[in-house]
């Protein structure tokens, strides 16, 4: 008998009474003014919020947010200020030292400031290794809470995906909050109008 069979035999021998799957009996948090809440919660988790007006160029906004940046890595066609296309590198280690990574977010979550990133780049290292991360997000793609987030019909369509809420942080030394533990030291979420 293999270990799986042994474990399953023990589980079945000790079987506990059947309990039905619970139904949702409450109405989860919603936010009447999505953009106001998103700005507030992003600030709370340490991220910058930029709302682009119609016709404003995303490259200008990136440059304005990180004027000192020398290397900007992105595979997004509209990011013309990119200095590197990370998908063309042979090894993700080459991304070490990147100043800014620019990626697309699928949707944002108003209750906690998370943005869902579905890996559409060759290397996921880009999301974590860049000193600063810029996330481009459609301003209409905001959900209230995690129930709505996971209920999106296309949610399960990923190989690797990550909810990111602000910059990397730690409080492991005396509970003192320090930004920039291993991942990005800064995160800017740029909200755009949907493409026409």
């Amino acid at each position, binding site marked *: 008998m293999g270990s799986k069979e042994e474990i399953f035999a023990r589980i079945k021998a000790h079987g506990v009474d059947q309990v039905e799957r*619970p139904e949702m009996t409450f109405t989860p948090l919603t936010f009447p003014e999505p953009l106001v809440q998103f700005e507030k919660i992003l600030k709370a988790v340490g991220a910058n919020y930029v709302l682009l007006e119609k016709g404003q160029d995303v490259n200008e906004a990136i440059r304005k947010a990180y004027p000192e940046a020398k290397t900007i890595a992105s595979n997004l066609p509209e990011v013309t200020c990119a200095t590197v296309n990370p998908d063309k590198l042979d090894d993700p280690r080459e991304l070490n030292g990147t100043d800014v990574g620019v990626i697309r977010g699928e949707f944002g979550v108003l209750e906690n400031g998370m943005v869902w990133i579905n890996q559409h780049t060759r290397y996921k*290292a880009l999301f974590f290794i860049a000193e600063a991360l810029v996330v481009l997000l459609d301003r209409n793609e905001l959900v209230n809470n995690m*129930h709505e987030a996971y209920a999106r019909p296309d949610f399960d369509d990923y190989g690797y995906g990550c*909810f990111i809420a602000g*910059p990397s942080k730690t409080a492991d030394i*005396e509970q003192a909050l320090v930004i920039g533990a291993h991942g990005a030291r800064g995160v800017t979420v740029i909200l755009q109008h949907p493409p026409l």
Partner: protein
Amino acid sequence: MSSHAKAAKKFIADRERTAWHDQALYFVREKRDKMAHDVSEWEELREMASRMKRHTISNLAYYLDMFERNATANGIHVHWAKDAEEHNRIVYEIIQKHGGKNLVKSKSMLSEECGLTPYLKARGVDAVESDLGERIMQLMGMPPSHIVLPAIHVRREEVGKVFEKELHTEPGNSDPTYLTHAARAALREKFLHADIAMTGVNFAVASSGAFVVCTNEGNADMGTSFPKVHIAIMGLEKVIPDYGALSLYIRLLARSATGQPSTTYTSHYKKPVEGQEMHVVIVDNGRSDILACTEHVNMLKCIRCGSCINTCPVYRRTGGYSYSYFIPGPVGINLGMLKSPEKYSGNVSACSLCYSCSNVCPVKIDLAEQIYKWRQNLAPLHLAAPSKKFMEKGMKFVMEHPGLFYPAIKAGRIAEKMPRFVLYNSLDAWGIGRELPQFAEETFNAMWKKGKMK
């Protein structure tokens, strides 16, 4: 005196540190309270999360099988380990197959439970902890003292000293930002040169065959971004039915653990990327036997947020090393007893029965109630302290005989007039660190009889 009380003596000898430790944890507890109050449906959320776990536990084999089937279809290799030894062997065999030497890992209490790091070290594999708190403890050569905040008991000056020796930081500099960024630079090299990545698992989603890892630092994701092999290890109670269930736990976990609306990174691993191998090791190691303990089966609901530890007045004032089991606080007292009452019964006295742990637990585990039950069962297990048994017998006799009870209360008042050395001596463990209360002039019973009470 219990093993906990003995070990705690050392910790509380430094009063200033005890007070600081207490406050640092209460600060986390208060942040948790604020988060809970900001979510109006918090109590209903806890209730549903608790029932969802109960549902999962009652269908454990069904969901584990579903997870394995879907994960395998996604290209993940799934392994089963009945105990710690088998877990370590499976992990080592995968590493060996790839000729791995340098493993970088994110936090996993399961690897502590299995003693994985020393096992690998003995076989020439260097396993580097990448969570800052875990790394501090690894460099200090000590185990974590908390499951979420591994170095909560360490002062910044102590971190500074260790980093000065190990990472060559500036002598005397103990600024947390400076030290954190020094660790960032040093660990960046480890990430880039590791050949095996290891993570724990917070949740395994059966319906999708994906697993979720939550960190604030991004160390799990950084770790898995370069090596060709990713090994994820999980206790079998980590499986949950689907994304509907996941939404409950993601909402509760970080709010309960550290008082944040979410962790910074909530990573979903479903398929290995091109050229990478992904393994999941599902470990039993005594978990399936918990199903047979009707009174304690709720322990399988635990999502390891640590909120019961942060709120525990005994933990806050005695520190993680006072407990003989590797997980401290209310959760550890109970898990230790399920592991081995003979080895870990010395922790059950580390509870004032304030029930705060049961009230903050995001999945509503009856932690304090269970500790109380363990205490009641110490005598049948022949683990009760003889002095306590003797006292209980005497108390029972007096309580059951009113003719003795009232004279005994009167006699008790004589204690107030006794010299200190009689009351507070080494034979009386209760008198150590405690003062007797002042007795009222008259008993309630006497006042009632005189018609003073209505």
